[in-house]
C-alpha cells in the first residue's frame, strides 16, 4: 500500500554520459525512483536501479577482510594511509562533482601526491593533441543549428551517447538545419557499427589506419595529389570524395571517440584530426568535438586546469604542479611500482587499468569512495560509501563541450551515506590534524 504521494521533478540532468541531457522527468516516492522519462535506456537504469549493489557502511580491512566500522574510524585510517605515503595517487574524479574534484586537489597538495583523472585512459591523447595543434570547436547547439555535414570517427554514439544524434546532430531540429535531409552523415570506423548504419557514407578504415587516412584527407584538402591507390583500406577516389564533401559543406562537425585516441598513434591521431579541421577552416567552417565519456570527465579537466594549470596527470609532490604524461600519469606511475597508496574516487581502475598497473594496485593500500560495489572496492583497505551524484547529491558538472550544468539531488542517499564533498572534507580536516600532531 502506498502512503506517501509520488513526486515528479522536471528538467533533471542525467549523470551517465557527458551528453548532458537535462530534460529528464523523474517520478519518485520517498527514496524509490519509479520512472525516468525522456532519457535513453541507460539513463532509466541509472535512476531506477540506484539502490542496487550499494555500499552502505564504511568498511576497513581487518584480518584480510573488509569489516564495517564507523565513519570517523574509516576517515582516520584513510588519513593515516595518505599521510604516511611518499607518493600517493588520487585517482578517478570523472563521476563526481567539480566541488569534490576541487577538494581532491586540495587534499593532494596537502599530502604531496599525484592527482590524475580517467582522462588518462580515454581522451588524454586528445588533450596532448590540442596542446600541439590547438582545436576549433563549439558547443553542441551550434552543431544542431548549423552543421550540414556531421562526421563520427571512431565512435559509436548510438550505444555510447544514445541521445547524441537526436539532441545535437543529424536528427535534431536547429535554426538553419531542420531535418535529417538537411545534413549529410559520414561515419569512419573499423566495423559497420549501428551508428554507421545511419550514415550517408560509411568509410571502413583498417584497424590502426586512422592516422594514415587523416593525413591523406589533409593532403587532399590542401590540394595535393595522393600517389597511392588505397589508403588504410580506403580507395583514394573515396578519400578525395570525402575531402570534397568536407570542403563543400557550409558548416562541418567532426566527432571522434576512443577509436581514434586509443588506437595506434594515439595523440598523433588526434593531432592529425585537429589539424585536418584547422586546415578545413581555410576553406569553410568546420569544428571538432571529442566524444567524452563519463558525465564529468570534462569537468575533471576543467577544475584541474584552473587550479593547477594542467588538465590531468598532475604531480604535486614538489609543492607545485608538474605535468609530464608518461611520467606523472596514473597508469605509468602505477606500472613502474612507484605509487605507495591510492585514493580512488568514483572510478574502477581494477577493471579498467592494464594488468601490470592493477597488479601493483593490489599490493598497496587503497581507499575507495564509491556508491556501489566494484572490483576496486573489493580490493580496498578502506571503503567509504558515497552518494550518487545527480541522484542523491547535487553538484556542478561539464558537458562534452564545456557547458557547465548543475546536477540535482533527487532523493536522499541511503541512511548514513555522505556525498564525496563531505567525505573528502572530513579527510582533509583529519590529515591536517594528524599532520599537526606529527
Amino acid at each position, binding site marked *: 500500500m502506498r502512503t506517501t504521494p509520488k513526486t515528479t521533478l*522536471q*528538467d533533471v540532468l542525467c549523470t551517465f554520459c557527458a551528453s*548532458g541531457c*537535462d*530534460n529528464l522527468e523523474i517520478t519518485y516516492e520517498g527514496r524509490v525512483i519509479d520512472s525516468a522519462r525522456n532519457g535513453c535506456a541507460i539513463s532509466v537504469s541509472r535512476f531506477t536501479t540506484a539502490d542496487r549493489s550499494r555500499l552502505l557502511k564504511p568498511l576497513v580491512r581487518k584480518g584480510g577482510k573488509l569489516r564495517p566500522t564507523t565513519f570517523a574510524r574509516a576517515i582516520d585510517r584513510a588519513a593515516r594511509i595518505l599521510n604516511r605515503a611518499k607518493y600517493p595517487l588520487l585517482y578517478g574524479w570523472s563521476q563526481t562533482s*567539480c566541488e569534490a574534484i*576541487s577538494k581532491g586537489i*586540495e587534499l593532494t*597538495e596537502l599530502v604531496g601526491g599525484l592527482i590524475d583523472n580517467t582522462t588518462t585512459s580515454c581522451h588524454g591523447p586528445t*588533450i596532448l593533441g*590540442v*596542446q*600541439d*595543434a*590547438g*582545436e*576549433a*570547436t*563549439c*558547443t*553542441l*547547439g*551550434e552543431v*544542431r*543549428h*548549423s552543421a550540414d555535414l556531421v562526421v563520427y570517427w571512431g565512435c559509436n554514439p548510438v550505444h555510447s551517447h544514445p541521445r547524441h544524434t537526436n*539532441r545535437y546532430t543529424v536528427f535534431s*531540429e536547429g*535554426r*538553419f538545419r531542420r531535418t535529417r535531409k538537411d545534413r549529410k552523415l559520414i561515419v569512419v570506423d573499423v566495423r559497420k557499427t549501428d551508428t554507421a548504419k545511419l550514415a550517408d557514407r560509411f568509410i571502413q578504415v583498417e584497424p590502426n589506419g586512422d592516422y594514415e587516412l587523416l593525413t591523406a584527407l589533409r593532403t587532399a584538402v590542401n590540394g595535393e595529389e595522393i600517389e597511392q591507390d588505397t589508403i588504410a583500406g580506403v580507395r583514394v577516389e573515396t578519400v578525395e570524395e570525402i575531402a570534397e564533401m568536407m570542403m563543400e559543406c*557550409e*558548416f562541418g562537425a567532426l566527432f571522434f571517440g576512443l577509436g581514434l585516441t586509443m588506437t595506434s598513434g594515439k595523440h598523433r591521431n588526434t593531432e592529425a584530426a585537429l589539424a585536418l579541421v*584547422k586546415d578545413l*577552416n*581555410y576553406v569553410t*567552417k568546420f*569544428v571538432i568535438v571529442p566524444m567524452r565519456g563519463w558525465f564529468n570527465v570534462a569537468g575533471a*579537466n*576543467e*577544475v584541474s*586546469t*584552473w*587550479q*593547477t*594549470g*594542467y*588538465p590531468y596527470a598532475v604531480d604535486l609532490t*614538489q*609543492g*607545485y*604542479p*608538474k*605535468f609530464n604524461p608518461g611520467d606523472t600519469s596514473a597508469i605509468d606511475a602505477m606500472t613502474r611500482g612507484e605509487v605507495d597508496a591510492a585514493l580512488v574516487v568514483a572510478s574502477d581502475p581494477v577493471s579498467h587499468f592494464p594488468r601490470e598497473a592493477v597488479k601493483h594496485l593490489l599490493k598497496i593500500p587503497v581507499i575507495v569512495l564509491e556508491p556501489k560495489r566494484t572490483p576496486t572496492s573489493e580490493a580496498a583497505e578502506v571503503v567509504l560509501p558515497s552518494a550518487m551524484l545527480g541522484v542523491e547529491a547535487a553538484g*556542478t558538472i*561539464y558537458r562534452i563541450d*564545456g*557547458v*557547465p*550544468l*548543475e546536477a540535482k539531488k533527487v532523493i536522499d542517499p541511503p541512511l548514513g551515506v555522505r556525498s564525496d564533498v563531505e567525505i573528502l572534507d572530513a579527510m582533509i580536516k583529519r590529515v591536517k590534524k594528524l599532520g599537526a600532531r606529527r
Partner: protein
Amino acid sequence: MPELLIRNGYVLDPLNGIEGERMDIAIKDGRIVESVGRKARVLDALDMTVMPGGVDIHSHIAGAKANCARMMRPEDHSRDTEAKTKYTRSGVGHTIPSVFTTGYRYARMGYTTVFEPATPPLKTRHTHEELNDIPIIDKGCFPLFGNNWFVMEYVKQGRIEELAAYVAWMLEATKGYAIKIVNPGGIEAWRWGRNLRHLDDNVPNFDVTPRQIVRALCEVNRLLNLPHAVHVHPNGLSEPGNYQTTLDTMECARDFRREGRTIMHVTHVQFTGRKGWSWADVRSGAPEIADYVNAHDHVSIDPGQLIFTNVTWMTADGPAMFALFKLAKTKWFNADVEAETGAGIVSATYKKSNYVNAMQWGIALELALLVKDPWKVYLTTDHPNGGPFTSYPRVISWLVSNQARQKLLDKINKTAKRRLNLPGIGREYSLHEIATITRAATAKSLGLESKGHLGLGADADIAIYDIDPRKLDLAREYKAVRKAFAHAAYTVKDGRIVVKKGEVVRSVRGRTFWTKPKVSDDVMKTMMTGLASKFDDYYTVRMANYPIEENYLTASQVITTSAGV
C-alpha cells in the same frame, strides 16, 4: 576583526581630491572610519605612498576561454611556477596563471578588485566557479551581448523595452555586472566563416547592423541605469585602418548622455586604433582617437598596452583570432557558443624588431599620453592579450618617465620609431595621475561607490607602496617605481593585511559583484513569455537550468538599480 590605523602615509586619493597629504587612515570592520580606539593595530607608513587598492577594469582572468588557454599551453606554465607556502596554494602560469596564483599576484601589486570582461552567458557558471576560487581580490564579470540571437531579434523588431527586460533577466541569470559587446554581429557571421568590419555591415540572416546593436544596448544601459557603461570591443579588431570603425562606434553613441557618467567604454584601443591600408603601412590612429575622447564626455577608453614578451591572445572575437592565427601560425583554439558568442585563443610573442608589434606598443602609449584627462583613460594590458597583468609596474614606469620610453624607443623597429608620434610626446604622468588611472577612475567608471577611494565608509582596500614622492624622482628613478609597484609594501583587503613586503601573508575571500536591475513586472512578463517560447529552439539547455542561483557565488555582492522601464 581588529581595528587598524595606517599612520603618517603620503595619501593619494583622487576621488576625494587628496593629492599627497600626510594623513592617518582608520579602519574598523573592513571599512574606513573617522577614528579607531587606542588598541587598534598601528601600521606605520612613514615615507610611503598610500592609495586605494587597485581596480582593474579589463583583465581576462577566469572562465571558459582562460581555461582553454591554460589547457592548451603547458609550455606557459612549466617556466613559471609558485610553490605552496604556509599561507598560499601552489600554481603556475606566466601569461595565464592558475586561479590561486592570479589572486596572489594581483594582491602583491596592491590590486584588490578585478573584472573579467567577457563571459559567454551559457558558460558563465564556469566563470563563477573560477572567480569563487580566486583568493583575496573582489571581482565580477561582463556577459557578452553583441551577437546574442534574442538581442538581435529585439533590435530588428525595435522592441527596446523587452530588450531591456531581457538584458536585466540575463544579468541576474548569469550574475553578470555589465553589458559587454565584442565585434557586434561579426561573431554571428563567423558561424559561416565570415566577419563584419564596419558599423553598417549587415549581420547574415538577422538583417541588423552593428550600429543598431550598439545603439540599442546603449539605450538599454541607460534605461536600466547600470552602474558601468556599455563595454565595447569594436568590429575590425587588429585590422589596418580599423581606427575609423572605432571612431564611428564612439560617435554612434554620442547622443546617449548620462548625468556625470559615460555611456560607452571602448576597450584595448591599441588593437582597434590603426591607420593604414596593409600590415606594411600600419600607422597610429591614436592622435585622432585621443582628439575625439578629449572633445567628448560620453566615452572612455583603455589602451591595452603591449609588452614585448610571450602572450596569449584570447577574445570572444573568433574571426579576428583566426585571422591573427593565419599570421602567427602558432596554436589556435576556437570555441563558438550557441546563439550567443564565440571565442578564439592564439599563442604569440611580441618582438621589438617586428614593425607591427613596435607600432602597437607605441600606439598604446600614445593613447595613454594624448588623452589629457586621466579620468577617461585607464591602465590595462588587456591581460593576457597585450601582456600579462604582472607588467603593470612596467607600464607605469613608461607613463611616469619619458626617459624610460626613449630608452626602449631606441631598441624597437626603426621604421616604427620613425612613424610613431611617441618620440615627440614629452608628457609624464604624476603619481596622482597614476592613482587615477589605476583605481579612482576605474572604480568610478564601474560605478563601484565603495571602491577606488579612501573616504569614510569606503571598503578598506588599500595599497601602500614604498615610494616617498618628496625624495623619489619618478622620471629618473623609474626602475625604483617599477619595483615599488610590483611589490606593495602592504596590501590591505577589507581591513586585513594580506600582503607584506610584496609577499602574501594571509589569504582572504573576495566578493563577486553583480547587477540586478529592477524592471516593471508588466514588461518582464511580456518578455518572459516570448523568451520561454523560443528558449528550447535556441539552446540545448533547458531554460529552468540556465540561471545561476545566488548561493552559487561564495560571496555575492549585488548592486540593485531601478530601471526606467
